[in-house]
């Protein structure tokens, strides 16, 4: 049979095989179809082999590319101590532990990794596969989370005003994005450049959440840290990108003081010159651009903002206006000078009082 197939494949043209397959006896049709199928398989196999050979030459595992882009997570338990090097409680590929903070940290690190891999083909925070380590149950009643340059640290909250800090995916995305900013631009953590640094973390943290939920720009809540405020606290979240200054107003916690426009910029020495306050201005600019453009916010505005972050003209001292201009350059490069996308981004910045002219 094989001998017959090979003889037919080598001798009979494809159009003849096709006629046999349509008009021949049942046995003739079967043999013709077998030959056509085998030929197709051989063609596909030859193409794959050639593609893989080229990929090997380029040192890229094409067919396994998605498999190579994978997170390498390790979660440590600080057991309410000060050490960053607690006991390993969950490693990459291990199943849930039942410890909520451990499992939320694991899942959140993975979701953030996947966001950058799927959206920007970025292999981890540094683009080179940096392992993602998380430390949970840091200190006692610690009402904070941060990226220390090598790992993410999570407190359990004080239980009065704040829940555990692993509870909100956008917070995890926020913190890991500080690592991305550190690699790409190193924006100084002071005054406007620091507020930009913060805004970039809020923006991409929110996009991680939106992608996880499959939300378009008009479906997202644009809140940062929803779920973090403890029961009884009067507020929805830590910050609102849509409406800075409205996230919370509580007699104990205080009031959200974020401005949404340059005319309300806060000059202060506290909080590294108000980095968590004035981030409301570029936050709202992104929200305006995203909702005006529509669709999934990580696709067009997210791409523009990420490209701007990688602009070599964005330096550690870059302020709002400099970054705004970088977003316009990015929009022009990706979508064309004078494009609707570029115009929309310019309008968004003008909407928060950042003059890009």
């Amino acid at each position, binding site marked *: 049979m094989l001998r017959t197939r090979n003889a037919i494949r080598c001798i009979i043209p494809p159009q003849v095989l096709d006629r046999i397959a349509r008009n021949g006896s049942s046995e003739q049709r079967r043999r013709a179809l077998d030959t056509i199928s085998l030929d197709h398989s051989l063609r596909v196999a030859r193409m794959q082999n050639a593609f893989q050979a080229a990929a090997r030459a380029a040192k890229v595992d094409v067919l396994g590319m998605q498999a190579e882009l994978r997170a390498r997570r390790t979660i440590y338990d600080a057991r309410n101590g000060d050490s960053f090097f607690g006991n390993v409680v969950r490693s990459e590929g291990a199943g849930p532990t039942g410890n909520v903070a451990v499992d939320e940290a694991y899942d959140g690190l993975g979701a953030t990794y996947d966001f950058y891999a799927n959206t920007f083909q970025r292999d981890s925070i540094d683009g080179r596969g940096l392992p993602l380590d998380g430390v949970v149950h840091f200190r006692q009643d610690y*009402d*904070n*989370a*941060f*990226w*220390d*340059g090598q790992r993410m640290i999570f407190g359990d909250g*004080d239980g*009065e*005003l*704040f829940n555990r*800090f692993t509870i909100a995916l956008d*917070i995890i995305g*926020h*913190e890991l994005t*500080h690592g991305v*900013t*550190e690699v790409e631009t*190193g*924006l*100084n*953590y*002071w005054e406007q450049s620091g507020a930009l*640094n*913060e805004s970039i*973390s809020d923006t991409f943290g929110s996009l991680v959440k939106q992608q996880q939920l499959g939300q378009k720009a008009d479906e997202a809540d644009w809140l940062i*840290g929803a779920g*973090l405020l403890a029961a009884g606290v009067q507020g929805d979240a*830590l*910050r609102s990108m849509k409406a800075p200054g409205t996230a919370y107003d509580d*007699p*104990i*916690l*205080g009031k959200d003081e974020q401005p949404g426009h340059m005319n309300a910029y806060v000059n202060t*020495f*506290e*909080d*590294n010159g108000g*980095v*968590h*306050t004035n981030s409301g201005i570029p936050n709202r600019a992104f929200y305006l651009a995203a909702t005006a453009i529509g669709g999934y916010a990580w696709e067009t505005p997210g791409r523009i903002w990420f490209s701007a972050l990688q602009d070599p003209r964005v330096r*550690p001292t870059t302020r709002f206006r400099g970054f705004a201009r970088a977003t316009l350059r990015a929009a022009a490069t990706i979508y064309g000078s004078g494009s609707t996308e570029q115009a929309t981004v310019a309008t968004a910045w003008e909407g928060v009082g950042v003059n890009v002219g």
Partner: protein
Amino acid sequence: MPDGARIRFVRSGGLTGTRLSVDLDAAELPEDDVTELERVAREGADAVSSGSDRERPGGADRFQFDIEVTRGNERLRLTLGEDRVPETLQAAIKRLTDLARSSRRSGPPRG
């Protein structure tokens, strides 16, 4: 015991960007805490830093502590980044933070 000295403590920043503060009589702290705060402040240790240290993104979302000790006509100011608190002041900062939380529970937030 430092007579008549008052301490103003403000914690700002952190991921939440919320503010915690307290004004208190220095006598509410152990004498050693106050002595060390004043010593560090007099030595001009602005550990939040200026220049290159502020550029380190590794400090992102860490707390900033601003402490002011007023004794008569002398006012000493000290700013510390959470990741730069000297070991000799760790306990004092924790005590001040706890006092500020207690103060927050008992009344409206300042500023």
